[in-house]
């Protein structure tokens, strides 16, 4: 008992001062890094389209609904596979048409006001014998080690698409990606 109590002060005294400084510095750096990581905000910036209500949002996703419950979802994916936009465009087209049975109605390039290039698909699908329009806009940016992909998906009834499509397009024009750089 007495030896234990007498040993502990000695062990504290033996710690080199430089080690204490190093430990304090390391903890400080970790705290600063954590604060910076917390302060960096979301992965993208998206304005809520007109006649939509933002119901879900997080650092990497955004969800909004219309009064008719048409759905808009914007998501961010961080990938290890680094490929350019045409690669993913071909992949998505092939997947939705060949594997899922979507009908591709329109397809064109899309560019935001900030100059970020993207690609727009308009598919037509039937769920429970009800025709739906599914609009998908794809943006890609390249990071140092990963690739960032942003998708904006609008799912609405066929008759509502003409009504909500322009509003979503206007909102996407002001879309800002905060990860990677346009490449």
């Amino acid at each position, binding site marked *: 008992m007495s030896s234990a109590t007498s040993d502990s002060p000695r062990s504290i005294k033996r710690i080199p001062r430089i080690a204490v400084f190093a430990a304090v510095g390391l903890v400080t750096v970790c705290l600063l890094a954590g604060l910076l990581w917390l302060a960096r905000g979301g992965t993208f910036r998206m304005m809520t389209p007109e006649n939509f209500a933002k119901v879900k949002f997080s650092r990497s996703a955004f*969800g909004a609904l219309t009064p008719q419950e048409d759905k808009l979802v914007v*998501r961010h*994916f961080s990938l290890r596979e680094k490929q350019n936009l045409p690669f993913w465009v071909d*992949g*998505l087209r092939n*997947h939705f048409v060949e*594997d899922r049975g979507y009908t591709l109605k329109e397809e064109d390039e899309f560019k935001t006001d900030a100059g970020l290039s993207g690609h727009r698909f308009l*598919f037509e699908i039937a769920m429970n014998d009800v025709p739906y329009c*599914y609009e998908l806009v794809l943006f890609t940016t390249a990071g140092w080690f990963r690739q960032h992909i942003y998708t904006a*998906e609008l799912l609405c009834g066929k008759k509502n698409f003409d009504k909500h499509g322009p509003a979503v397009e206007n909102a996407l024009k002001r879309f800002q990606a905060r990860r990677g750089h346009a490449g």
Partner: protein
Amino acid sequence: MILHPSAKRMTSYLDGVLPEVQACRFEAHLAKCEVCRRKLQILRSASRVFGLPKRRLDAISESVMERVGQIGNLAAWNVRQAGQADSLSYERRQWNTDAPILGEIQSVDGTVFVRSGAGDKAIEAFPGCALRQGDRLEPAAEASAVVQLTNGATLHITKAADLSSLAEAMAAISSGASGRTLPPSGRRLQMRFTWASGTVAVAMAIVLAAIVVPKCFDAWERTRIARARRDVQRLALAEERAASRNAGYVPLQVLDDPARAASLTYDPTNGTVSGGDVWRVKQGDEPRLAPVISCIPDIIVSDADGDPDFFIFNNALDLDELVSDNTAASSLLKWSLVQSTPGKPSPASQGSAGQNQQAPPAPSKSPAPKTTPTSSTTEKRLVIYTAAFSILVSSVEDSMKDLLQKIEKWNGYVQTADLQRVTFRVPAANFNRVVEEISQLGVVTNKQVQAHDVTRQYVDLQLRMEVAEMSRKRLLALLEKAQKTEDLLKIENEIRRLTEEIEKMKGEIRLLADQIAYSTIAVDLTAKAAEAKPARPRAGVSYFPWINQIGAENVIRYF
């Protein structure tokens, strides 16, 4: 101020390597300086004591040499010249220091000179002085010396000794003693035999023998017992074989000395033995062991049929002794003996052994005719064959039809059948052919063929049934003679019990015979699966996980 020469110069002078001019100066100094003369004497003495060349004494400091010079016995090592001439000229004489040492002078009484080689100069001997090859000892008047030789001998040299014997002794020294260099201290390790050491050695030998000898005997005994056990096992196997071949009778075995065994005579006609003590072993439910353990018989007595009837062991070992020695062996050797004298059975052996004695061991001469089927059935084994197949066929229906037709062709019949599985029986004679043909119906995925030997079971049942029938016949005869009602009832009950038992055994025999006559075969037919058309792997699922998270379905699921 007087400058004295250094120790290095002194050793160089002693070694004779000092230049002539410096040597003359040194000698002139020595003539005047008593101190340097003493130092020179000490150096020479030290070189003798340590057995080192003089040049290596450079390392010895002067102070050390002073201390050496103060030792009393060294002070007595005063080297003198024989004719009291110039000591310096004598001290420069080159001793044959490289010659091997023959001995060491232990003690000197009077004046004894050591003369080296053929020179006319000598030094006075002193205790501890090394005697080298080529040296001669010359005692003065009434003087003597004792020399301890390197070979352990002691040489006494006196004036009165005969000079010729002295010369011979010296010659013996020169020739006998090898050139071994004494250690500097002059001490040698001497191994001397004493009574105490001898007693200790003998005691140790006795103790070792007391430990080792019993161990050796134990090992020998264990080996002997293990060999005996192995022999017993082999003998038991041999008896088992002999008993199976001779309707349950094991051969007679003789436990006697070779002379009596040789005088043994055996009459195969009536199965009697004469001329010695015969041990007959009774064969019970289990094979019993004979009281001999030698597995290779020295004499085998056979009759006309060629089967061995006697095994005579000349060097037989009595198992009684073995059992009394070893408790482990007693559990192994569970045997029962019936001792009989030829022609005069002992009371204990008059039952079964007496019956056995009249029965020759050969099956043909067995007294019990009941055992005749045993010998006949052992020649032809009774085996029940069964088989089971799992076969992949292209069409189960077609194969089943084909199989049913074949069963009729094989003179068989179907026991059970459903859409895919059929169990049928065919005559045992056709079993092999049927198995071969079934294997050609399709792809055999599983095949099991079993053969169950029921010879013993069949023979046992037959014997038991025959004995029961004989008993029932006797009871029926008794029933006719019986007059008391109580006896009649008892006999009728016994007859009823025997009848039931006989019927039961007859049923078992019929079942066994049926199973032996007809083999049972089960065939399981399975249709080959149609070749699967390779579908697109992971339809509707992308190899990129993030693509699987988008789409209309996932949008709905997101909210």
